[in-house]
């Protein structure tokens, strides 16, 4: 018997079978390239593992191009006495056709194509299957890519991609090209320059990728912004955003302070808006929501929201609750500094009266040993632990530095805190004598002034031995300490990793952290702490823009409840026409209102509420690990500290009431909440293509990543009500299913 083994790759009846998708045009299958990072950049004719199969051929067989043991071949064949027995390893989603030849010239099929199983298959061929005289055949097996649902994606591809091989429109409406078009959109724009995944070329990002980018960089994607990203490219959009003006909270609070009962549309709201001669700080969430939803400076909105969860002050504090101006101006200080330098941010936060009140550095006095009084350690501790260097020494990639015993190394001791506490002595409110904390006035929105007589003028030793000399005033001591913290090697990885977690993913690779941390240390022009460069590095990193979110099952983060809310509100144009920045006729938005007969206020159901963290540790701990699968894997899921059986159901109930009634903080609240504008959704409903209707919701809430099962549920939900008469209900039903679905809750 003669035998012959030939590699796979010869396609019979080629017109019946799809070629693997190759949107990056490198001659190899896109979906297969996802599995093998690096292969996309190789030549298709290369044989990276030296197993005799080119990378292009391995891509056709969906075998590993970097493992010589994995290649398509007949691993065993023998004559058993009455038949031929052939054996080879298969991949699921491919078909395998056995062929024979007597002359190596003309090849004939024998038997039917066999579906791959992912395991070894055996074909037994009786002599009768071959013509008389063909007693010494050569054998080969050809691999073919079936496309059962004829959507342009082969079955093996769909298994890797996550679409349904048996449905042509499991991820995208058939009228819009179905699953094949979905995959094109995954590929186009999946590199930082906007080009296709696996290339270094620039291009126009697909809507899917633009939406994904905006889920990281804005308060929620909307069609106009998606168009802007596609028009400008990722970097171009960022640069345009850097030039958007700052929008503030303080003007609204000042405006309220000038009002009287007769000015307020609903006088019963006045007790909530006003105390006798001040404005409650919870009013800050009205301009917060107006800006978050409709400021054109969306990147600044998103970044400031993240910064406010690092530099935490809270209206839950008894003193700040009565001082709307201080809280508003603190947030505005973060907004103004978001695209500046981190050092200036840290400095202005340190000197802000809201922070002074929240972490009790205001009116902090030099030691008075005679009566056993020593400086308050609060701010000294938290500026180090939370705002700059963290508790343990870090490498530039964010991993802990370990000592000879494998132990982590603390960044400071309690003695260091006592020294640092002496720096932050002598702060008072500008324009006020020592000890006076007014409820209104410009002192609450000006940097804290100093009272040098209350300042500890002795030398102070910083943790590395640096001495702040005796006799420096408050301002110089604080500036020097902030500068020291800013330049500490920990600050770059510590802050970089926290920002990555807020914007992109809870578990960035060490290499990603290092790339961003390196930019923090030096923006390329010798400048440390350049926030524009840092944010660009985070959002334009290959890990943020590439296909890691598909290939790495641990990629992503739970959207904070606040982001979930702004995302759907932006999709539905909530309050867009009621959002002028400083008037009472616009919408109002409070999170904590308890009015007569109220049920839980919103922040209880969501466990989140802008500017109202329960503690300086924010709503969730950056190193929280959800018990169970997340903790067992040693991974972090910070935002999931807000996820539990209470919030899971309570937040779904909230969506049910928000959609028809607007974003009110409690069911009995008077006043105007931001209300949804359904016109566009109703038009979609009437257009009569429910699959496209699902796509519209999916693009904005799920970045076109809603999977086949949820997609089917959404489509059914839309069809529970009839088009033409219940169009708003059709939209609400689809959105009700999408909003709590994992694909829309988890940002990827």
């Amino acid at each position: 018997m003669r035998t012959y083994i030939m590699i796979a790759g010869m396609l019979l009846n080629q017109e019946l079978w799809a070629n693997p998708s190759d949107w990056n045009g490198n001659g190899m299958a896109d979906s297969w390239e996802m599995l093998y990072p690096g292969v996309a950049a190789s030549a298709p004719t290369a044989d990276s593992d030296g197993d005799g199969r080119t990378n292009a051929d391995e891509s056709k067989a969906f075998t590993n191009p970097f493992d010589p043991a994995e290649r398509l071949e007949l691993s065993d064949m023998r004559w058993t006495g009455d038949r031929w027995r052939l054996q080879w390893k298969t991949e699921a989603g491919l078909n395998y056709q056995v062929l024979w030849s007597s002359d190596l010239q003309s090849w004939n099929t024998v038997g039917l194509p066999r579906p791959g199983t992912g395991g070894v298959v055996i074909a037994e061929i009786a002599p009768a299957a071959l013509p008389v005289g063909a007693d010494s055949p050569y054998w080969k097996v050809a691999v073919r890519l079936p496309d059962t649902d004829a959507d342009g994606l082969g079955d093996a591809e769909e298994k890797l991609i996550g679409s349904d091989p048996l449905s042509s429109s499991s991820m995208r409406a058939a009228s819009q090209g179905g699953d094949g078009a979905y995959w094109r959109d995954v590929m186009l724009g999946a590199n930082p320059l906007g080009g296709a995944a696996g290339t270094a070329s620039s291009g126009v990002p697909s809507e899917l990728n633009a939406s994904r980018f905006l889920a990281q960089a804005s308060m929620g994607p909307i069609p106009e912004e998606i168009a802007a990203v596609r028009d400008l490219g990722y970097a171009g959009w960022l640069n345009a955003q850097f030039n958007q003006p700052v929008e503030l909270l303080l003007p609204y609070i000042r405006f309220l302070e000038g009002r009287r009962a007769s000015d307020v549309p609903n006088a019963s709201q006045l007790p909530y808006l006003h105390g006798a001669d001040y404005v409650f700080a919870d009013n800050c969430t009205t301009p917060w929501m107006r800006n978050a939803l409709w400021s054109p400076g969306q990147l600044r909105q998103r970044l400031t929201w993240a910064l406010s969860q690092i530099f935490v002050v809270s209206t839950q504090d008894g003193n700040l609750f009565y001082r709307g101006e201080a809280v508003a101006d603190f947030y505005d200080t973060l907004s103004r500094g978001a695209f500046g330098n981190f050092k200036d941010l840290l400095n202005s936060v340190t000197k802000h009266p809201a922070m002074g009140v929240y972490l009790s550095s205001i009116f902090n006095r030099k030691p008075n040993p005679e009566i056993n009084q020593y400086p308050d350690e609060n701010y000294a501790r938290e500026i180090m632990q939370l705002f700059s260097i963290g508790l343990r020494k870090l490498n530039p990639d964010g991993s802990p530095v370990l000592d000879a015993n494998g132990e982590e190394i603390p960044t400071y001791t309690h003695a260091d805190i006592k020294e640092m506490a002496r720096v932050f002595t002598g702060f008072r409110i500008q324009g006020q004598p020592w000890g006076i904390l007014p409820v209104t006035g410009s002192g609450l929105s000006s940097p804290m002034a100093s009272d040098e007589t209350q300042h500890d003028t002795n030398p102070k030793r910083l943790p590395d031995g640096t001495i702040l000399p005796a006799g420096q005033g408050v301002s110089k001591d604080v500036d020097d300490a902030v500068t020291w913290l800013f330049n500490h090697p920990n600050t770059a990885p510590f802050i970089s990793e926290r920002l990555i977690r807020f914007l992109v993913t809870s578990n960035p690779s060490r290499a990603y952290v290092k790339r961003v941390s390196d930019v923090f240390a030096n923006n390329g022009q010798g400048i440390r702490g350049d926030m524009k460069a840092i944010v660009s590095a985070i959002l334009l990193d290959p890990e943020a823009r590439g296909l890691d979110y598909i290939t790495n099952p641990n990629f992503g983060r739970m959207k904070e409840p606040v982001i979930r809310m702004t995302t759907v509100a932006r999709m539905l144009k909530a309050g867009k026409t009621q959002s002028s920045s400083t008037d009472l006729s616009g919408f109002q938005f409070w999170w904590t209102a308890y009015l007569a007969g109220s049920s839980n206020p919103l922040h209880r159901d969501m466990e989140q509420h802008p500017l109202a963290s329960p503690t300086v540790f924010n709503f969730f701990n950056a190193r929280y690990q959800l018990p169970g699968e997340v903790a067992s894997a040693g991974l972090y899921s910070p935002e999931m500290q807000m996820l539990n059986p209470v919030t899971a159901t309570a937040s779904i109930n909230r969506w049910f009431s928000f959609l028809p009634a607007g974003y009110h903080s409690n069911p009995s609240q008077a006043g105007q909440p931001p209300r949804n504008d359904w016109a566009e959704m109703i038009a979609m409903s009437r257009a009569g293509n429910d699959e496209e209707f699902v796509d519209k919701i999916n693009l904005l809430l799920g970045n076109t990543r809603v999977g086949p099962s949820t997609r089917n549920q959404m489509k059914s939900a839309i069809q529970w009500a009839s088009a033409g008469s219940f169009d708003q209900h059709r939209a609400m039903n689809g959105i009700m299913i999408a909003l709590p679905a994992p694909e829309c809750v988890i940002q990827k």
Partner: protein
Amino acid sequence: MNRRTFLRAANCSLIGTTSIFNTLMNLRLAGVAAAATAPAEDYKALVCLFFHGGNDSFNMLIPSTPGEYSIYQATRSNLALSLSGPGAALPIAPLNTGGRTFALHPSMPNLRSLFNSENAAFVANVGTLVQPTTKAQYVGGSARLPKNLYSHDDQIVQWQTAINQGQTNSSGWGGRMADLMLSGDATGKDFFGINLSGSSIFQVGRSVGSYPIAASGAPVLDNKNNTNPFFVRRNAALKSVMEQNYANLFDRVYARESKRSFDLEAQFNSAFTSATVNTAFPATDIASQLRAVARTIAGRSLLGRNRQTFFVLIGGFDLHAGLNAQHSALLGPVDGAIKAFWDAMVEHSLQDKVTLFTASDFARTLRSNGQGSDHAWGGNHFVIGGGVKGRRIYGNYPTALTLGGALDVGNTGLLLPGTSCDQYFAELALWFGVSPTDLPTVLPNIGNFYSTTSGSAPIGFLL
């Protein structure tokens, strides 16, 4: 032999391992449900009352013996409570302090009543420790210390996990008790640890999770039982979405938590609403949490657990400033809430089966920063229950609260604990039914402080 001693004896003699124990108890519970005249029910609950932010507990329990008080007064400066006049601290006379007298924060008259009626006790100067530690060892760096002392979030976790070697996240000691006690239980592992404070780790075990509820019970999906076809379909669709198997880890665990929320709510709420608690609770947040605990305990027979832990939390104790005024505004509501909770347990004749204990990040510096006090270490805690040998102060309340004194490791009145959290927790765990041999599973460092074969109590306030 009174009933309490009998139950203790039963715990020691009948029960070799916790899994057998639970099998027995589940059989027993089934019997209780079936028979009107059942034997005395074996049920126990531990309630952790957490003071979030670091309670200044050397102003909750102060020395009043004249010499000790004047040291206290000098050390605490403008933070010191007075012993006479308006706002004076409330004197108590413990039975076991050799004539030393003490006083409670003036906003806690009900705690004083419970103390005087021998249903409450204090454990003094408790804190996180790895091993017994002296000031010399602390200063010389020769003892292993808990990681990140004085840091809120680290110390909060360590109080709840009893693991203080730097693990970022693991399991709580309440959760590990649940793991042990439910290890042979095939009926499901829910409703052992009921949590009124979201995602706290105390009750999260390796295989058993906690069950967070709101003070009003478990949230119900709106229109869950509405038979209108729209709601029937909507609810089925939501359920289906949460039951899919998702490839992404976060998709998967989010869906799982949501499904769990849907699945457990009905059973929990049926228990929660089945029993009546007539005792009136004050209209404070902490009282509403303890009322929810009382309601859950009252409805326990429908939850199928004969051991339960509860976790309630009151925040706002990080009083670097405004200590004097704001401490009263926190301890006052606590005092009202624990009184109502005690009354509710008496109402149901469960006061011997339920022990409430306090926990906190840490205590605060004795030294004033002018406006308040800063982060410290060892602090004072109280326990309440019919099982408590009350009107006593356990542990070692320092005889002189001098700055720079024998226990002050910061020269700021930052006290080295005299009793470890492990000892404090071990006493509670043994009472709860953990066997001495299982104690190291619950409290990994306990062997550094207590011999589990000694036969004596770790502290003695319950056993």
